[in-house]
């Protein structure tokens, strides 16, 4: 499975640098801000197959390139588990992540431990939640987007798609609109 660059990127490589910058920024905005109206970058099938085995295929635009580089360079120690992968897959997925990583102003900052969930924008967007919610059995961890974002696995995080997690204690109902 060859990772073909998107036509836009191919074009941008031959174009002056400012066009490349514009094009890449456009891509990143679409993927990083899934609740924006922009088109989402469809994930590389290999990324979907390998990474979404244990969690959703997090939109590539949710981490900056430097973070993805470290993540892909340390898969045998991946947030407490061994996620090691053959070298061919690592190379293909890394390449795709570098092209589609977040370059939008809010994502450029490398979050602590290269975790999406420690990014300033993530923390701000979830600051109305009771911190105890992440530890509940119905949620398990902040990495489990699907607990509330019903279409997170499709890369979609629109406000309208947020539902109260099944089996979560009603005392967490504060601030829920569904």
């Amino acid at each position: 499975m060859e990772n073909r660059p998107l036509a836009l990127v191919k074009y941008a490589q031959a174009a002056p640098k400012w066009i490349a910058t514009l094009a890449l920024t456009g891509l990143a905005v679409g993927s990083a801000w899934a609740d924006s109206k922009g088109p989402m970058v469809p994930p590389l099938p290999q990324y979907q197959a390998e990474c979404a085995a244990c969690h959703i295929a997090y939109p590539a635009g949710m981490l900056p390139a430097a973070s993805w580089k470290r993540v892909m360079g340390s898969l045998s120690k991946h947030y407490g588990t061994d996620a090691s992968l053959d070298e061919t897959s690592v190379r293909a997925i890394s390449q795709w992540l570098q092209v589609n990583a977040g370059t939008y102003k809010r994502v450029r900052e490398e979050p602590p431990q290269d975790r999406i969930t420690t990014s300033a924008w993530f923390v701000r967007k979830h600051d109305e939640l009771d911190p105890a919610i992440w530890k509940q059995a119905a949620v398990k961890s902040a990495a489990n987007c699907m607990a509330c974002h019903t279409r997170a696995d499709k890369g979609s995080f629109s406000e309208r798609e947020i539902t109260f997690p099944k089996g979560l204690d009603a005392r967490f109902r504060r601030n829920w609109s569904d």
Partner: protein
Amino acid sequence: MHTFFRILGGVTLAWACATTASAGTPAEQLNALAAQAGRSPNPAQGQQFFNAQHGREWSCASCHSALPTGDGKHASTGKPMGPLAPAFNPERFTDPAKSEKWFRRNCNDVLARACTAAEKADVLAWLISLKR
């Protein structure tokens, strides 16, 4: 004499290919593991191994559940996963490279080392023994 060894070599090679290259079924993968282990697989031991902790936080059952005939759930991310027993999920143990990848990762998470061929054979024998 040379001819004899050439033929013997050819036969050995053909046999090796037959046992490894076409390991597209759980039974074929079990045979290959048993051959590597040099003993018959022990399903009861496999069940015990699967459900025990091995000096770390997780057992195999932490994600696959104690009776892997139903869905499992990733112990840290909560992501649901299909049953591990082949009779309940026809995709399981049909791709040797995939089986090896997951044994490598999961044995490292559960035991902090690679599993032996005998341990893998025992577990797979138990999984295959789980019928509808």
